[in-house]
């Protein structure tokens, strides 16, 4: 059996032939063999958009506190440092991971996957599939900071004191949206294609009850 010509439909999980005869999944009829070049370009375009949005997301204030007519603004990093100084270490860490580590890690992972899809590398396709899976699953967690800012702005909404989201909230939310689109546009065949020989390891499914 020619294992290297089998691919997984990302919509219905069905195993399909990767041949030129048909461009649709045999079960759900989703296009699963659109051009790889198109997938590459889409992933790259969404990634660049996200990276550009990440700049205003860090430079502009994400949270503005208006207290008796006085405005004080705080950026994402400023907020994390402030929380750390106050001693709320767990919260500071959650925000640090969600708003800084996860987005940067996603940028790096997608860039790595894009670069290695064009050039021969020593890394195994098995690891790269796992990296793509991780990239997809950690994506939404960056939304925590935006959610928190919105929740706080609803609750701290009095005549004397008000908290409201700054420009960075919009930039950040859009950044998360575009990184998710970027990861979703990445076609797994970009990993599969160039080292066809050792593509799949075949085995019996492991049992457990």
């Amino acid at each position, binding site marked *: 059996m020619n294992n290297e010509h089998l691919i997984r439909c990302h919509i*219905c999980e069905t*195993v399909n032939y990767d041949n030129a005869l048909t461009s649709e999944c*045999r079960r759900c009829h989703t296009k699963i063999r659109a051009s790889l070049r198109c997938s590459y370009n889409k992933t790259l375009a969404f990634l660049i958009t996200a990276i550009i949005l990440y700049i205003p997301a860090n430079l502009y204030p994400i949270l503005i506190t208006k207290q008796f007519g006085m405005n004080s603004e705080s950026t994402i990093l400023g907020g994390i440092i402030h929380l750390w100084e106050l001693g709320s270490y767990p*919260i500071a860490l959650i925000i640090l991971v969600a708003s800084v580590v996860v987005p940067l890690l996603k940028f790096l992972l997608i860039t790595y996957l894009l670069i290695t899809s064009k050039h021969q590398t020593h890394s195994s396709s*098995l690891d790269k599939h796992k990296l793509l899976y991780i990239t997809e699953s950690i994506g939404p967690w960056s939304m925590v900071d935006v*959610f928190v800012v*919105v929740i706080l702005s609803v*609750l701290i909404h009095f005549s004397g004191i008000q908290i409201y989201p700054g420009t960075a909230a919009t930039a950040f939310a859009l950044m998360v949206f575009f990184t998710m689109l970027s990861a979703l546009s990445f076609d797994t065949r970009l990993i599969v294609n160039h080292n066809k020989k050792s593509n799949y390891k075949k085995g019996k*499914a*492991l049992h457990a009850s």
Partner: protein
Amino acid sequence: MIKEHELDKLIICKKCHTLYEKVPLTKNEKAFCNECNVLLYQQDADMLNKSLALVITAGISLFIAFNFSIININIQGLEQSLTLTSLFMVLAEHEQYVVGLLFLFIIVIFPISILLSTFVLLFFMKIGKAPYLTKRLLILLAHLKPWNMVDIFFISLLVSMVKLFDIANIELGIAFVAFLFMLILDIIITKNLSFHELWLLHAQTYGYKDE
């Protein structure tokens, strides 16, 4: 060329893309990937009924979560409560339209669509009718899945509460419990409802050429 039913005996792991030949399972058994321990497929004859009951319960929780207050706070006599309506009113007042739109989709439209589609899908698959509709719903659900953020919204609620802990009296509303309940149900449904099995069941129930 292998025939279609031969291809159906194969499965590719969603995480590491290792190809496996499926082995028959007995009742309530599960098969995991050798490489990354991800659940590949399972045998559960009662999947439709169980999931249907869970989805209905989740729907009730969602209704409560959307219509009652999530958190009430009290700062020196001043009171404020977080509800879905107050959330969108405040966002509109601050002219945060993009964030508001994103919230509308992530918190309201997607969860409702996911639950409603799953309910309709399971109902029609159970009685074995409407092949085209059920197929569209299966595809729709696959597209909606990555945008489900109930878990992240709940974590955000907890983070916000910790931030307000020092300056305000916090009281949890009914909707907070409903959100927590929905989160738990969501995890159980995801564990129970295998889309791989649903697609196979769809092919068995309606035949391959349903269009």
